[in-house]
């Protein structure tokens, strides 16, 4: 999920009509991207990292100005120093007009891919994704066309399958992409809530094909990572939606965590909880094309506390055994020892090692932050046990767009 490779970027500017030349921003910027002359304060496009440290301290809001600009013709310092007013947003080439990734989304994504050392290139045969078609300023409005509980009534978590319909609004997605949801209302500081990301759980032609819709797998958050009770803003908003309600959606996002399209590609998928969403999308894509006999192996490791807590458990069990090799790991099954995905990976060591060593295998890991270490450790162990060298495999996997991780 790297920032799109594009010639258009979001240039940070200062509105000379509003700025009072108070020097606060220059004083605040940690990397010296702001300078001034007798006339104007200006932001150096070559330096500014959009860290937003200068935004809140500016007393006027002048600093919170942005223009979509082709990289090649960014406004230079000399140009900016000559302005009396901000230039209007220029017309952009149609394809480029929408390649803006909001900085808050960029930060969330950077965080989610941290475990693999940043965004990786997509698989070589991935389809080209659309990204950033809908911005915070102009979100798409989707209508809820379904909202079902996936987990058992007595399960401790409420995970839901939510179908969003985009009507006539363009919202093309690929398996593995995410969308951003803008919760209504404002946060404790009176600001609009920041967007939350959710993986698309349906394949590219939609949950219900040809209806311009997609599905999400959303867990209702009722406590923070430390177990302190709290009501997650976006997840509760989504889980409480009724059919016919509307949601503000931005995106789509993601140019990296995409599935390969070439016949014979293997998918090695490891997930916990709602990390199953992108795996379901990819699996569904393959299932719908089963008649094409494209070949390739699907292997899934899926962790949950108990069977009842596992989203899509029933439908998964109905998939043919020769279509997908499913391995569950339950950590709280009554009367059974705790098992985690890494335990199952070790148990299936021979097959896993063979798959990983195959240049046609693409690995996907998604779920709660922290799971990546155990999984990588298990991969390293099985490789060692079966005569492969993980230390040389991993960099190659990454570089070739064959190792993708999203944890949150």
């Amino acid at each position: 999920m790297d920032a799109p490779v594009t010639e258009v970027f979001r240039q940070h500017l200062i509105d000379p009509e509003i700025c009072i030349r108070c020097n606060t921003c220059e004083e605040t910027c940690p990397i010296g991207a702001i300078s001034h002359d007798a006339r104007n304060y200006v932001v150096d496009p070559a330096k500014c990292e959009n860290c937003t440290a200068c935004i809140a301290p500016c007393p006027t809001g002048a600093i919170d100005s942005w223009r979509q600009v082709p990289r090649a013709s960014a406004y230079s310092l000399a140009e900016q120093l000559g302005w009396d007013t901000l230039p209007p947003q220029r017309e952009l080439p149609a394809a480029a007009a929408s390649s803006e990734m909001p900085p808050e989304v960029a930060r969330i994504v950077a965080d989610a891919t941290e475990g693999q050392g940043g965004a990786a290139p997509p698989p070589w045969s991935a389809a080209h994704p659309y990204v950033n078609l809908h911005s915070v300023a102009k979100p798409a409005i989707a209508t809820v066309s379904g909202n079902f509980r996936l987990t058992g009534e007595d399960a401790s978590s409420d995970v839901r399958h939510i179908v969003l319909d985009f009507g006539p609004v363009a919202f093309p997605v690929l398996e593995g992409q995410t969308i951003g949801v803008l919760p209504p209302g404002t946060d404790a500081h009176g600001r609009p809530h920041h967007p939350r990301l959710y993986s698309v759980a349906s394949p590219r032609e939609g949950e219900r094909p040809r209806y311009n819709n997609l599905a999400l797998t959303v867990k209702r958050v009722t406590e923070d990572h430390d177990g302190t009770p709290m009501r997650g803003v976006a997840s509760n908003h989504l889980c409480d939606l009724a059919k016919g309600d509307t949601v503000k959606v931005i995106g789509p996002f993601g140019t990296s965590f995409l599935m390969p399209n070439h016949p014979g590609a293997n998918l090695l998928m490891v997930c916990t909880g709602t990390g199953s969403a992108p795996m379901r999308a990819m699996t569904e894509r393959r299932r719908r094309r089963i008649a094409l006999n494209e070949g390739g192996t699907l292997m899934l490791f899926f962790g949950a506390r108990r069977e009842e807590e596992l989203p899509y458990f029933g439908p998964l069990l109905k998939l043919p055994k020769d279509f997908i090799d499913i391995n569950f790991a339950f950590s709280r099954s009554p009367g059974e020892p705790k098992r985690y995905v890494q335990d199952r990976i070790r148990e299936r060591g021979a097959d896993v090692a063979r798959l990983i060593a195959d240049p046609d295998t693409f690995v996907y890991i998604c779920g709660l932050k922290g799971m990546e270490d155990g999984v990588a450790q298990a991969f390293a162990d099985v490789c060692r046990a079966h005569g492969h060298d993980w230390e040389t495999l991993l960099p190659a996997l990454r570089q070739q767009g064959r190792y993708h991780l999203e944890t949150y």
Partner: protein
Amino acid sequence: MINYDEKIPNNVGLADNRTLQRALEHWQPEFQSWWADMGPEGTTNHDVYLRTAISVDPKGWAHFDYVKMPDYRWGIFLAPAEAGRKVNFGAHKGEAAWQDVPGEYRPNLRRLIVTQGDTEPASVEQQRHLGLTAPSLYDLRNLFQVNVEEGRHLWAMVYLLHAYFGRDGREEAEALLERRSGDADNPRILGAFNEKTPDWLSFFMFTYFTDRDGKYQLASLAESGFDPLARTCRFMLTEEAHHMFVGESGVGRVIQRTCDAMNELRTDDPAKLRAAGVIDLPTIQRYLNFHFSVTMDLFGADVSSNAATFYSTGLKGRFDETKIGDDHLLAGASYPVLEVRGGALQAVEVPALNALNEKLRDDYIRDAAAGVERWNRIPEKAGIPFRLRVPHKAFHRKIGPLAAVHVDPDGHVVDAATWAKHEREWLPSAEDRAFVASLMGRVAEPGRFANWIAPPARGINNQPVDFAYVRFG
């Protein structure tokens, strides 16, 4: 007893400093009772959408929330220390910056701090009644933000007095709460801070011109060789910016509204415009002349041996001292100041060390005049051929040799008769003030603005303009 780290966010280790705590414990209730007596009138129950600094890093010092003003967290913040900082000018240039007060400079440093500290409660006192006539909730909130920050700046100076000046410091800190703006017996130290701020046009002019003086004074103190003073002032500067913003945008919005009315009514006749309830541009120019000239006096006498001493002893530097490319000693350098010779103003060269007030005044004028040019874009855009301008720096002075003569806004020395004849064109008359006062009346509905002022271009902290910036409790 108060829990300091909770009530008074600080980065000076207050919780670990018993002596300082005790001093502040004594002072704090007096501050609260000063605020109750002299702070914004009748506001204790309002929930105001304020920006509070809770730490000095960019994430911490612009924390927005509804706060009742008496509960505002008047923090004590010093900008982060700069490793290996040196005294950058004067006789001690090149020595390590002082973390303590050098004994021989105690009285001078104390005087600088007290003078700066005195301006902070003074402006709160001057603005005490303005809340009753705010032209909108947005403006009301901005007034209160200015007020609480002046209060915090007082804390900052009082902290320095308590922490570094012992018993003398404690007495000075108390005296800061005892003087009163405009009081005949016990006035504020500087003249401009004893003037009234009777109406919102005056307030906007004050925050534009007079708080900008604050910026220049703080910026020169931020260069001080006494490091705690330098760091305190550096952080204060970040907040001072908001005050100038209130002034710059406030006057700009008044001009905007007037220009709109001029175009609607197709007139530039002040009488017709006044009848329409807006402030005619010549009146705005007269207010500008007044506030600019009063602020000119704040920089002190043109030739000053005190300023020379403060500089050579490393206590108070020049604006942007470290960015100036000279010897930072001013050995043998000269600087022009104005004198009246043969009935006209004439620039004469004096030793630069003695002209430091004048130099700071000139730096200030450039900055203030540039903002007036920004105001001029408003009539320009509206197609109205009227330009505001700053008067000559010798105009209407009350301090220094220029106080003895009459100088018109263009810088011509005039006799008393000429002055008397034109004074009403140059400075606001009693009628002007009465007219402006007649427009003042509270507007307290979100998104509504008094007729004489345009809405702002943006809300505060990305909030919409019609946000409930103040809730009346």
